[in-house]
């Protein structure tokens, strides 16, 4: 695009982000501060993911962007168009055809390969922030692997409600070291994080943090021996493709309680229905 560098960011900024990514890959699950830039999209719209994508994108890459699992949500459309405009790269809605997938709130149902990179948009990289709002104090807890408060929080849920009440952004332990936010994906997606073949990069623009889960890394959703982690989905089959293994969106069809369930992953659904 005239007047702008390939993929919007200047090369110096890209190098700074790549250095942060390399450090993040070297310390799986650890949040690395980076000099996040103002982007032409608002904070909260995926500025962290956009900066990570901009830093890793090459002219041969094929980009897929999803929001809520869907390629057709307005923000996914907007970010895909942004990169088509400022990088002139090919885009796709097919999971299997993409080399880079930027996502908000979902992991695709189709298993990702070692030659793919999954970039997450992260609103709040600090998994402990509800327990310890000071990031200075939270950093110290991570350094000491002092995670008792998180286990107590899970225990309190079980004691009061009979089960852990976290249904999305369910905290994980990466490489047996750092408690990490998987970003607000439904807990249903958590098992896909574990030993994924693809590199997983997480970008938080407003909070200026990058972290990573390298390929084939152990990722455990926090639980107890007598209360093992259980992923949940709406009980039923997709009304369009009949899938019983995918995460389902509930669509209200009238004001008399009518509803249908359809796959949240639009590419997975279209591939099955075809």
């Amino acid at each position, binding site marked *: 695009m005239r007047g*702008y560098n390939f993929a919007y960011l*200047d090369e110096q900024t890209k190098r700074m982000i790549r250095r942060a990514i390399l450090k993040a890959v070297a310390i799986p699950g650890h949040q690395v*501060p*980076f*000099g*996040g*830039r*103002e*982007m*032409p999209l*608002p*904070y*909260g*719209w995926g*500025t962290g993911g956009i900066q990570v994508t901009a830093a890793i994108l090459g002219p041969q890459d094929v980009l897929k962007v999803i*929001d*809520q*699992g*869907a*390629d*057709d*949500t*307005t*923000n*996914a*459309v*907007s970010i895909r*168009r942004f990169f088509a405009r400022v990088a002139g790269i090919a885009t796709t*809605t097919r999971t299997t055809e993409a080399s880079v997938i930027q996502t908000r*709130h*979902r992991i695709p149902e189709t298993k990702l390969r070692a030659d793919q990179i999954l970039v997450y948009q992260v*609103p709040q990289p600090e998994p402990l922030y509800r327990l310890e709002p*000071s*990031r*200075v104090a939270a950093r110290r807890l991570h350094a000491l692997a002092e995670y008792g408060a998180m286990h107590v929080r899970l225990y309190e849920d079980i004691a009061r*409600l*009979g*089960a852990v*009440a976290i*249904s*999305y952004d369910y905290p994980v332990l990466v490489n047996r070291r750092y408690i990490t936010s998987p970003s*607000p*994906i*439904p*807990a249903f997606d958590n098992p896909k994080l574990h030993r994924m073949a693809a590199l997983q990069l997480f970008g938080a623009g*407003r909070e*200026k*943090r990058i972290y990573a889960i390298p390929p084939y890394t152990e990722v455990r959703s926090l639980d107890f021996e007598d209360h093992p982690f259980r992923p*949940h*989905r*709406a009980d039923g089959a997709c009304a369009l493709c009949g899938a019983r293994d995918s*995460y*389902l*969106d*509930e669509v209200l069809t009238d004001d008399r309680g009518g509803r249908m369930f359809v796959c*949240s992953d*639009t590419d997975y*659904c*279209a591939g099955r*229905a075809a």
Partner: protein
Amino acid sequence: MAYVAVKGGERAIDAAHAWREAARRGDPAVPALSTAQIAGQLGRAVERVMAEASLHDPVLAALAIRQAEGDLIEAAFLLRAFRTTLPRFGAALPLETGRMAVRRRVSAIFKDVPGGQILGPTTDYTHRLLDFTLLDDAPPPAAPRASDPVEAMPRVAELLAAEGLLRPEPASEVTPFDLTREALAHPAPRDARLQGLARGDEGFLLGMGYSTQRGYGGSHPFAGEIRMGAVSVELVPDELGFPIDIGEVVLTECQMVNQFHGGKTEPACFTAGYGLAFGQADRRAMAMALLDRAMQAEELGEAVTAPAQNPEFVLAHADNIEATGFVEHLKLPHYVDFQSEAEAVRRLRAAALAKAAE
């Protein structure tokens, strides 16, 4: 199906943008606003946008205000997103506000000060009555000109410091922190804190500064000096090796003189809070100075009890571009997470109802 939906989303975005453009222009029978009108007649808005965008460019700030239909936070965002793409060719020398071409200068701690008190073009003593003659575009009355040129005006804080009454500010040769290029880490040094305040939301600075006056981290402030005027910006180009004047900026500087420090062993002295803002911005500079002083609490050995004294709290929440983004992002789709939460609530309800039925 997906393909059709993607095209639908793109059409919706294009249509929304076209509607936005038409709405911005308003009634075509009314002449369009010019950027020069905004820069020349809505100066306070232009200055606020330049401060919160950290970019001094009145013409581009006026353009941003026009493009944002007067939404100043949106305008600051537009200007910041432009600023971040600009190359850097150097850093200016520290501004010499003591050599300011003063248009306004007041000190609340002395009846008179060397150089005098100059009200300048202030609204401080106007009666806030709507001026209906502006509806008819009546020309303003002629403003009288002073017969004598203004004298040299040493900064009041320096007069106090010369007597040892004000806590000395150690000079530093360290390259200042750059908030626009690095992630802020805590405890943040004062240069980083001042940068965060300089681009912070004016309403937030005002509210937090106000809170210190109502007992949440008070520091007995006096307005030592508020001065406003043009200051030369000097730069030393590598190829020349000596400073050249590259233009001037109008600034408001506020030096608060606050509660004293010291006691039996250390000689007592007043402490200072500093505020600096583009343009004529008493409110912004004064609120900034209150907060700068409040955030020195820990360094001065004071008890940190109030939000305004906690730099991590203040600086993490002062940026209105970050804040508006994160607040407003709640309108983006969250239905996947909501579905997960709704299923969890249904499971909990089913379990509780089954237990109640037993």
